[in-house]
């Protein structure tokens, strides 16, 4: 049963591995290519395609970092534009941070009844955007001169750094010797609470990723413009609730409505629905569906 549940949507496993090779050191192919073309000597790692710092820099008035780290701004820009057109496919198919916690969640066969599940996606959305608002407010407070009391939280609570540290530690165990409070807290929230003990294993993505939250907004705008999105069509439903239980983002509510700002177009609902009631569409803005 458990092994069978692992076999769903096999292409995502392949894309996770590709995402891992593209972004995580020692491979970090994307940054390696960029560094090669730009003549930069540094060894690339996941931290150099930071998902958070450019967002903080923009709102804290430090956009001049675009000259020092143009690749980070380009990366975020690419993720957001992709989210607009194809949905948050980076989150669903490539992001190594989300893939790692989701994979851990799948591997550990803990029944969903022992895991955190927020039944109403509107509450999940409120938490997600409460975090994003707080994240942006910190940057603005720093801009306004409150830097003696507040600090940017991008690096202090950084799941990318922790993931890279774990991988570095597999290669060279000495790298696992140093942990600070922020990285310990991240490990607990990202892999244990958000991974093992959250339905879908993406608690970190849902509640603590500003890029994921922004991608959700772009996806919502994109879906209104008629770009790629997952919808549920009218049809005979066997009420098995598989779509709800396999959605890694807890984006489907009990009425089978999809919360657009949470959906990452991962196609888990499409692959699991026995009645084929979910599908991805393009353009057809007025398709008969339950979508928000």
């Amino acid at each position, binding site marked *: 049963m458990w092994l069978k549940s692992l076999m769903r949507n096999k292409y995502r496993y392949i894309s996770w591995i590709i995402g891992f090779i593209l972004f995580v050191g020692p491979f970090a192919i994307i940054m390696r290519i960029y*560094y090669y073309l730009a003549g*930069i*000597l*540094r*060894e690339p790692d996941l931290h*150099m395609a930071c998902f*958070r*710092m450019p967002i*903080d*820099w923009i709102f804290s008035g*430090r956009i001049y*970092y675009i000259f*020092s*780290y143009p690749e980070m701004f380009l990366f975020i820009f690419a993720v957001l534009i992709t989210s607009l057109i194809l949905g948050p496919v980076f989150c669903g198919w490539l992001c190594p941070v989300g893939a790692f916690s989701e994979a851990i969640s799948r591997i550990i066969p803990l029944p969903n009844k022992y895991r955190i599940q927020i039944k*109403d996606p*509107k*509450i999940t*959305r*409120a*938490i*997600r*955007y*409460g*975090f994003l*608002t*707080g*994240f942006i*407010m*910190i940057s603005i407070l*720093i801009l306004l001169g409150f*830097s*003696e*009391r*507040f*600090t*940017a*939280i*991008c*690096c*202090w*609570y950084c799941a990318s750094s922790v993931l890279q540290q774990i991988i570095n530690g597999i290669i060279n165990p*000495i790298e696992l*010797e*140093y*942990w*600070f*409070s*922020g990285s*310990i*807290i991240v490990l*607990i929230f990202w892999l244990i609470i958000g991974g093992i003990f959250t339905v879908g294993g993406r608690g970190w993505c849902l*509640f603590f990723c500003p890029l994921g939250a922004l991608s959700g907004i772009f996806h919502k705008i994109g879906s209104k413009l008629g770009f790629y999105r997952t919808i549920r069509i009218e049809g005979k439903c066997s009420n098995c609730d598989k779509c709800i239980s396999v959605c890694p983002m807890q984006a489907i509510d009990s009425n089978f409505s999809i919360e657009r700002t949470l959906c990452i177009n991962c196609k888990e609902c499409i692959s699991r629905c026995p009645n084929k009631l979910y599908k991805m569409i393009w353009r057809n803005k007025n398709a008969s569906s339950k979508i928000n």
Partner: protein
Amino acid sequence: MKKTILISFVITMLITLFSSVYAKDLSKSEIVHFWIAVPAGNITEPITIIKAGLPPIKMAPLVIDLDQRGIFKKILNPNTEAISTHWIYNIGKKPIRIKLELIEANYPIRWEVKAAWPYDPETHTFTKPLPPGMGIPKLSIDWIFEIPNYYMDEKVIYDGGLLVIDADTNELLTFIPIKLIRGGISQGGGASCCG
């Protein structure tokens, strides 16, 4: 329902703001980040260097009180501590080949250096001269103190400093005193590691 949604939003926002305040407090005693300007002489008190074309560079002797670290750190990983920099700027008038030396302790201090600038890990020297008015690009240096148990009971766990030297002339350009202590007040660190 709307009330629940609003409460969820506000509580998460407040938790996020609190997490920033918590991080700010801990950043004075855990993985303390600091700025380096060369040449700046012996840093005996907090100074801010303002140079055209460079961000304000705040420097101070570092005093890190290990007792002020976070609860998770104290319980789960107390025997290591780190200091870190992402910023070394040449504020002088000539190009400098920068060499770094950390006054040693009676236990290992591990260097982790990454930079988009040629670096020799054997001699801790940036082998290409750094032009005036420029910082070492994409720099990340962590010094990790692996403190044995029996040192953790001492009042002073490390009393040394970082020497920044001109590798061509061996002239001392900048000296930043660094102390790791138990009990007291952390000073001099707390720069935001996010730039």
